[in-house]
């Protein structure tokens, strides 16, 4: 804090207020925001969706969309007034003095231009180099972000690179002109934890070595805690708290910050710890699952291979030969789930966890292997005809994206009623409505929202509709495919508790597919770690997370961002330090 007094701040925002013109009149997205960033400092802006954190950064860059308008306030950047600067001044500053990294790296890159050329464009635009030297400078920039074979990668198109590589290229573009301030807007959302760690460390090292200031905008308090010097917490367009990182975690001043820290699953001993006190309810009466030794689901040697597309010419050439083996997305995995048990299926993107859950759910046919559910072989019925099977109602799923999994033309009530009509044989408008209202009450969805369309509901409400739909047929096995990945932490806390309560109440078994080990720790009895289509490790949650035997599991655990000041759940923290 003291260093600020000696240094004039690089960026100084005073009383910023931003409005958006909407159908229902102007809406204030950001009101009286004050913040400053000193040279070489990393400032985190943390808040949930709708808190105005991105809008603040867009206002600094002056890239608000046409409906948005800075109503009042000053933005001062190293002595220049940005809030009323002309477009010519701003486009000169953007990329040269202030750069930005966006959330979706693939969308931020031009898909039809080689990445090297895109770096050159920035350099030439800001007269940092001549055309003759541009290529060498671009390759240098790629090397700085630790892309191997930079000279070869220079010609690559964005679609040829992985998400993490694309984000490195975006960082290379952002840092090409050595700006003084880097704004990173959710730079690692949607990337795997190990990639997230690599990208964030890269940003930290580069900004440190060049003495840049960084503004990190994120919803993840853990990430901000690990990489920022100071943190600003925003809620509904206002700054509620501004402290250095240590102070924020050890002595949070504002109620909202305390709630946010509590909702973050790092420190929680059990799932109820995530909720604020007033929302903690006693657990519902638990149903003891039927006592049988037979597991509910047994998966043996399950394989899914995707054949490469073969043209007519290729097929003629290959005639008589054995067809080529395609990519094996799932490569012979075996596991079982007992009644009333919840099993976590963990792995990074592309490891085959979603393919596995789609096969168990009978949305996808397996190439080989067996899936036995309550003693019956599921693979005998093709996925296309499983809709008519009596087992359909026993196997249900909650999808990853609560918005995308609801039909945009159906109201919440219609979505919940669909499985009731098709699978339970329930008939009659009033009977159905009554059951839908009962389900809505069980998942905590206010009844007056039932007649709304999906786009009229918030993320958490949509997640509840999806859960109500999945439990409407009282399934024995529920697959949860990253059910909270698209939700804010406080909503995630509520949804996770709801899922735990429902499981206890109905004696369901869960297969919880996730990339987030912290969430799995709170919800699951057993964990299966997957990588490249195979099981790496399997065992009770406590054991896997505290004493993993596989190197890959250790790597995953170490990659979870852990702010030094946040009290950790002892077991996992120990592994991270080892």
């Amino acid at each position: 804090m003291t260093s600020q007094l000696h240094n004039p701040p690089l960026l100084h925002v005073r009383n910023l207020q931003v409005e958006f013109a909407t159908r229902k009149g102007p809406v204030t997205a950001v009101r009286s925001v004050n913040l400053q960033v000193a040279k070489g400092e990393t400032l985190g802006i943390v808040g949930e969706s709708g808190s105005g954190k991105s809008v603040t950064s867009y206002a600094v860059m002056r890239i608000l969309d046409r409906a948005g308008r800075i109503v009042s306030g000053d933005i001062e950047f190293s002595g220049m007034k940005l809030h009323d600067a002309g477009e010519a001044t701003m486009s000169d500053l953007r990329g040269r003095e202030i750069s930005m990294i966006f959330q979706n790296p693939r969308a931020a890159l031009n898909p039809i231009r080689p990445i090297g050329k895109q770096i050159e464009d920035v350099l030439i635009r800001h007269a940092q180099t001549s055309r003759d030297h541009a290529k060498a400078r671009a390759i240098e920039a790629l090397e700085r972000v630790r892309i191997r074979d930079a000279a070869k990668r220079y010609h690559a198109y964005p679609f040829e690179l992985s998400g993490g590589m694309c984000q490195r290229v975006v960082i290379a573009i952002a840092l090409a002109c050595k700006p003084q301030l880097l704004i990173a807007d959710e730079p690692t959302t949607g990337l795997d934890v190990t990639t997230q760690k690599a990208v964030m460390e890269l940003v930290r090292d580069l900004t440190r070595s060049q003495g840049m200031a960084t503004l990190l905008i994120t919803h993840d308090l853990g990430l901000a805690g690990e990489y920022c010097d100071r943190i600003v917490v925003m809620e509904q367009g206002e700054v509620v708290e501004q402290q250095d990182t240590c102070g924020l975690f050890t002595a949070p001043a504002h109620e909202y910050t305390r709630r946010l820290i509590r909702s973050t699953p790092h420190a929680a001993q059990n799932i109820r710890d995530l909720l604020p006190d007033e929302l903690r309810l006693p657990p519902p009466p638990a149903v003891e699952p039927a006592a049988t030794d037979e597991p509910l689901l047994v998966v043996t040697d399950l394989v899914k291979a995707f054949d490469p597309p073969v043209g007519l010419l290729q097929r003629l050439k290959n005639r008589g030969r054995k067809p080529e083996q395609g990519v094996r997305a799932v490569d012979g995995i075996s596991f079982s789930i007992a009644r009333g048990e919840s099993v976590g299926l963990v792995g990074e993107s592309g490891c085959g966890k979603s393919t596995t859950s789609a096969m168990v759910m009978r949305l996808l046919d397996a190439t080989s292997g067996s899936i036995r559910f309550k003693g019956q072989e599921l693979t005998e019925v093709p996925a296309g005809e499983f809709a008519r099977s009596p087992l359909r109602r026993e196997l249900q799923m909650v999808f990853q994206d609560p918005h995308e999994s609801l039909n945009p033309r159906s109201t919440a009530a219609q979505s919940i009623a669909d499985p009731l009509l098709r699978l339970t044989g329930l008939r009659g408008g009033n009977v159905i409505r009554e059951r839908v209202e009962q389900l809505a009450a069980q998942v905590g969805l206010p009844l007056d929202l039932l007649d709304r369309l999906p786009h009229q509901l918030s993320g958490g409400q949509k997640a509840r509709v999806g859960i109500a739909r999945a439990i409407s047929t009282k399934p024995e096995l529920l697959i949860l495919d990253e059910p909270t990945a698209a939700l804010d932490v406080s909503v995630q806390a509520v949804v996770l508790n709801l899922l735990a309560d429902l499981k206890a109440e109905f004696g369901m078994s869960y297969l919880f597919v996730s990339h987030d080990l912290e969430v799995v720790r709170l919800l699951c009895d057993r964990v299966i770690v997957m990588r490249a289509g195979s099981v790496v490790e399997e065992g009770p949650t406590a054991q896997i997370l505290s004493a993993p035997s596989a190197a890959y599991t250790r790597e995953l655990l170490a990659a979870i961002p852990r702010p030094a000041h946040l009290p950790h759940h002892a077991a996992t923290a120990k592994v991270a330090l080892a």
Partner: protein
Amino acid sequence: MTDTTYTPELSAPVNRRSAWSRGFAHFRYVMTSNPVTFLAFVLLAGMIVVALFGPSLVPYDPLATLSDKALKPPSREHWFGTDQLGRDVFSRVVVATRLDLLISVSAVALSFVCGAAMGACAGYWGGWFDKLSGRFLDTIMAFPLFVLAMGIVAAAGNTIQNIVIATAIINLPFYARVARAEVSIRRNAGYVQAARLSGNSEFRILLLKILPNTLPPMMVQLSLNMGWAILNAAGLSFIGLGVRAPTAEWGIMVAEGANFIISGEWWMALFPGAALMLAVFTFNLLGDGLRDLVDPQRRT
């Protein structure tokens, strides 16, 4: 987005308006938010009224010839003048509305239904049907479309039914392609997977879950095509195929009137031509409004 209430508010008043009143409120919102849409719907309503009641509203019989009144310019008795046989042009223009709308609406409806079904199946299941229907549509597109329509009518016979079929065939690829693209991007969407889990059969999913969601882009295509179909039907009549004299139809009237423009009798071609233009104009304006009406995201 703050959604931290864990206990449900069970006592919240349940407000359930009927689907009709919600639909009407949405219609009113779309009409008032865009004056051009409002104008298009007023013009459309006017055209429908004229098509339904035209024959009983007009002052003269559209087919009655009065040789002493041939080729009179517009006057108080004959608003749009008279033609070479002394028939009242105004009455003929008004009466022709029904026939022209009938041809174009049925042709567009036919190609909408067939094209959407074909494109939806191709987009949903893919495979050999997709390849086969794709090449079939390419073949249609490879012809100059108006020449193709001429050929179909000339070969199949000069009847109104054949004009409708010919117009439907040349419009088919547009609907089939839009439907195929819109269905294939949705066939594995989250809500489609959820519908599979809810026990819907594949056919039911396609018909009730996916197709309704492809309506907004299809509606834009529909309204653009309507204007085009009217022009097409009138064009066929203009070159002597399709509707035959003395039936009142805009295309024939323009064709007949064209012979007299040189000698100064401009009204015979101008008024049916203006009616044709107004109809095409109306349907082209209608597109955005129709899309907004069927798009659930526009509802609040």
